[in-house]
Structure formats: C-alpha cells, structure tokens
C-alpha cells in the first residue's frame, strides 16, 4: 500500500515538474541551436548569443530595464519598509484595516488596470502641473515602484512580526531613543528581509511587460517590451538566447533572495529555542 502510494506521488511529482519546466528547458536547449528555424534542431552553436550582443536595440532595452529595475527596487524599499513597520509595530490605530488592505491591493490588482490607471494619472498630472513631462523611464520607474513597494511591505512586515518585540524594548530600557533603536537594532535585524525585498522588486520590475507598455514613452522600451514586439515579427533564435540569459539572472536572484530569507529564519529559530544549543 505504501509502495503504491509512493509510486503515485512520484509520478505526480514528475508530471508536475515536467509541466512547469520542460518548456523552459526547451528554450534553453534551442538557444544553442545552429539553425535559423526555432523549432528544428540543427546542431550546437553559440552564434545566437553573439548576434544577441551585437543587436543594439536589444542591448539598449536591456540597459533600460536594468536601470528601471535598480531605481524602482530602491524606491520601493524606501517606501515599503516604513509601511511594513507601521503594520507590525504601531498596534491598533484608526484605519489600520484599510491601510493594510490598500497595501495588499497592488498584489492582487490586475496589471492591466494598474497600468491603465497609472497612465491616466500621469496624463492628468502632466496637464495639471506639467510633470512628468511626457512618459519615459521615470514614469515606468514610478509605476514599478508602486507595486513593488507592496511586496517589500509584506516581506518586511512578516519579518518584523516574527521578531521578538522585547529586543526593541530592551534597547529602549537600556536608554536608546526610538529613532536610534530603529537604526541600531531593528534595521540590522531585518536586513536580510530588506535585501530579499529589494531582489524581489528588482526581479518583478525586470519581468513586467503590461504596466510598462501602458506608461512607456518613446525611447524607453524595456526588455520585455522589445522581446514581445520582436516575437510578433517572428521568433528568432536570438530570443531563445535572451530568454536563457534572463532565466539565468532571475534564478540567481531568486536563489539569493530565498537563501537570505531562509537564513534569517533559521537564525530566528535558533535564537528562539537555543536553550539546547
């Protein structure tokens, strides 16, 4: 009976993983394809990687994406951290439920709606106050910051609520004022969460196509936009090469982020039940 169940479980596992990862694996394999046809194998080659790096449009778009990613991840960290702090440390206050709901909203809002509403906001603002003048990198950065801040807030909040509040109280008891406690005690303790939040934001920003398409302007094509438009003209093996590189980057980021989260969790557990250490 036991053996039967485990066969079933294993096949379910294999099927599930295959469903998720075979397409990605195919992309990676075909990025080393010699031939021009995307779907027909014609031998191993890295020539599409070379041609990718000679494609100026592609490189520009990647550069744009990178800049937007770094900027919006940093801004999201600056906005999301205080929000997470308020949610976990300010106890009950009027409008707390609404506040937490509004922070979580961008996580579940359809991207099309976020993109559209931001576009309307930018257009209205431009007419009213003349800023932002036209749409471009800055509007995309702002748009990405809004939804990335929500992710940072959630990550920071969960780290803070798992943290023993008496550590901060101990600092206060020993004579540290609230602002000092934040920088000397709280910040170092949530640093892994902040790093994870930043990496997550960067990845999300790098990924985003829909919102960016709404708020982009001339000369601010991001990598996903570029890929999407060139695929419409026909899939070139170059795209496969690009996709492989993106997968590589994103995986590395995710691995680092989850490693950081895991390590801080383990530290916390060890601190919590360390009497047997």
């Amino acid at each position, binding site marked *: 009976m036991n053996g039967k169940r485990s066969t079933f479980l294993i096949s379910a596992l294999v099927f599930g993983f295959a469903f998720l990862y075979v397409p990605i694996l195919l992309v990676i394999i075909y990025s080393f394809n010699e031939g021009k046809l995307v779907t027909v194998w014609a031998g191993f080659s890295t020539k599409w990687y070379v041609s990718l790096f000679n494609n100026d449009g592609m490189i520009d778009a990647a550069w744009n994406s990178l800049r937007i990613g770094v900027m919006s991840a940093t801004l999201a960290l600056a906005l999301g951290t205080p929000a997470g702090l308020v949610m976990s440390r300010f106890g009950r206050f009027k409008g707390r439920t609404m506040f937490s709901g509004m922070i979580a909203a961008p996580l579940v809002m359809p991207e099309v709606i976020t993109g559209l509403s931001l576009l309307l906001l930018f257009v209205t603002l431009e007419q009213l106050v003349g800023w932002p003048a036209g749409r471009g990198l800055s509007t995309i950065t702002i748009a990405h910051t809004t939804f990335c801040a929500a992710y940072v807030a959630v990550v920071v909040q969960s780290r803070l609520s798992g943290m023993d509040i008496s*550590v901060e*109280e101990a600092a*206060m*008891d*020993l*004579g540290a004022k609230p602002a000092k406690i934040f920088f000397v005690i709280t910040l170092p*303790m949530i640093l892994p969460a902040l790093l994870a939040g930043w990496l997550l934001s960067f990845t999300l920003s790098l990924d985003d196509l829909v919102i960016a398409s709404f708020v982009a302007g001339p000369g601010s094509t991001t990598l996903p936009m570029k890929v999407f438009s060139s695929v419409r003209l026909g899939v070139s093996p170059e795209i496969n090469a690009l996709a492989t590189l993106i997968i590589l980057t994103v995986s590395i980021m995710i691995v680092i982020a989850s490693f950081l989260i895991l390590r801080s969790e383990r530290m916390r557990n060890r601190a919590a039940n*360390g009497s047997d*250490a």
Partner: protein
Amino acid sequence: MPEAVLERAHEDVHKTQPWNNPDAVPYIRFENVTKKFGDFYAVDDVSLDIYRHELFALLGGSGCGKTTLLRMLAGFEEPTSGKIYIDGVDMAGVPAYERPTNMMFQSYALFPHMTVEQNVAFGLVQDGVSRSEIKELVAEMLGLVQMSKFAKRKPHQLSGGQRQRVALARSLIKRPKVLLLDEPLGALDKKLREQTQFELVNIQEKVGTTFVMVTHDQEEAMTMASRIAVMNEGVISQTGTPFELYEYPNSRYTANFLGQVNLLEGVLVDDDEKYAVIKSDEANCDIYIDHAVQGHEGMTFWAAIRPERLRLTKTEPEETKYNCVSGKIEEIGYLGGISTYHVRLESGKRIKVTEPNTGRHNEPTYTWEDRVWVSWEAGAASVLNK
C-alpha cells in the same frame, strides 16, 4: 532584657525587615494603580510598597496582571490611573529610556547581531560613557556573571543558561536603582533553575540593587524573595514573607497557590476567647482551633491544613473528639524523600497527607485500601473566611 539590647534587636529587625518599620520610606510605591486594556482590568487598584535592597517577587498565574505591573514600572505601559514612585520621584510621563530601572526579559531579548560584549556594553554606550571605562565595566560585569570567556561570542552560539547570564549582566551594568526580572529562570530546565536561583540571590546581595521579579513558580519565589505579593485577577491578594504566606494565608487562593493544602469547609459552632470549634460536615468532624476566631457562630469558615502537618496512624488515636477523621488510602505517591497519600474519608472527601521517608530499609507502612486515621494538632489549621 536590658533596654539597649532590646533596642539593638529592634534596629536589626528594622534594617533587615524595613516593612515592619513604620518609619521606613518605601523605595518603590504603587498608589492605587489601575491599568485597563479596553474593558479588561489587567491591574485593579493596586497599592504596594517595596523597600530598598529587597528582592521582591510578584507571584501569580498567567493573566493575573503581574507582568503588566512590572511593565508599568519599566515604563512600557502607562497606568490608566494611579501613581508610581521610584525613590520618591513620580514616574508619570517618564519614558522607559529615562527611568532608573533596567529589565531582564523572559526571552532575554539579547541583540542577535551583537557579541556578548557589545550586548552588555549597549546601555553604557547610550549614556555616552568613555570607551576605556566601558571596557573596564564590561569586563568586570562579565566576571561577575562568569561569562568572561564568551565575550566575543554571538547570542546564538550560547546555551540558555549562558544567555541568561548575559541578559543579567546587560541589565545590571548601568547600576539601575531597580532591576526588573520577568520570569528570570522561566526558560531554563529544572536542574539549572535551582542552581541559578541561589546564584541570582548571591549576585543581588553583592550588588545591593533592589530586585523586583515576576514569576508563576511559587517555589522560585519562596526560595529567592524577601517578600512576595500574590496576585489574582489584577488584585494583590496577600503580601508577606514566604513564611507568613505559607503559615498564615489570608485566603483560600493564597493557601492553594503556595504549596499544597487541605481545605475543610465548616461552620463556627463554638467561639471563646481562647479557642474555637468549627463543625465540618464535609469531613464529618469537629475542628478545634487553639485561638479565637473573628466571626459569629454559624458563619462558614475553611480550615486550611498543610499535608505535612497531618498525622497518619493505623490505629485509632486515643482522643477522637476533635481533629480526627478516618478513611481509606486511595492513592500513594512515592517521591523519594516523602510519600504522598490520598485518603478518602468516610464522608467522601479526599485529603492529602505527606509523610517523610526517614529510613532507607523501612518497609512501606501503608498500602492501598488500608484503613487509617488522620489527626492533627490544634495549632495546625489556619482559619480562612474567604
């Protein structure tokens, strides 16, 4: 006795027991302190005086308000009403970081990203003490708690007992007027706890700081404290030395909370200037008390008798009119040093008797279903009216 000797004896008592000296000025004073959380009274109109150099314990079950009282002293909570004085200064509106108190937390709350040394130094750094002085004081304090060897370690590399020492050192280094301890030994295992109890008392004697500690463990409170306040549902039900609380409880709650007790419910039937008799239907016996009882005949009282003050015999005692009941042994608990017997009385009431096991080769005296008589002396029972 010559008057001078008497006076000196008096002075001595006043020094070691300031609570018995009407002229002594309390070091910490709670004046009608109430703390409400919403509609819930966590602390309800508590007034309490604690004297200098005391090791004072707040004892009670969970949710009795003892921790809230401690946190109000530390400044983490403000009283809803009432006043708190430390060394004559009103603490209203004084933030935690400016109070002359330091706290040792139940979870120890060590800073995980700092070494032992940095943890202990933290309080001094906040005060802007010079580096050389900090170094000296930290080394001295780590010596006091025997943690000098571990100065460079991080908290997660320490055992529970070691962390407890670091937490103690960190909270003592600023020489606070009052050290607050929240379940100081709660996270240690039993063996280590017993050992640490005495160590903590020794350190307290060495540094002379006033300690106020919160605990739910009556044994811990009795071992360590000079005085104990027993709390129940936000109210202090009794304050006194461990001896006073154990031998002269003022309520069934205190009697039950400190040690074990048999409570026999009865009615006062005879009240004289020198003695009193309580008739207990529950135990089906008359209880003779060797002092007068405050109350009128017909009032309900409880006679509280500790299990070790009861005498167990296989034969009927000569005098059975008062303070004697018979029953059958229902349960036997062998604890090594003592044995506990549960005796089911003829009236159906169950009482607990403990007897010391004095000889190593003694045969067990009693076995299950043995018929026994339980008797006690006139002074063994304390009479409670609530």
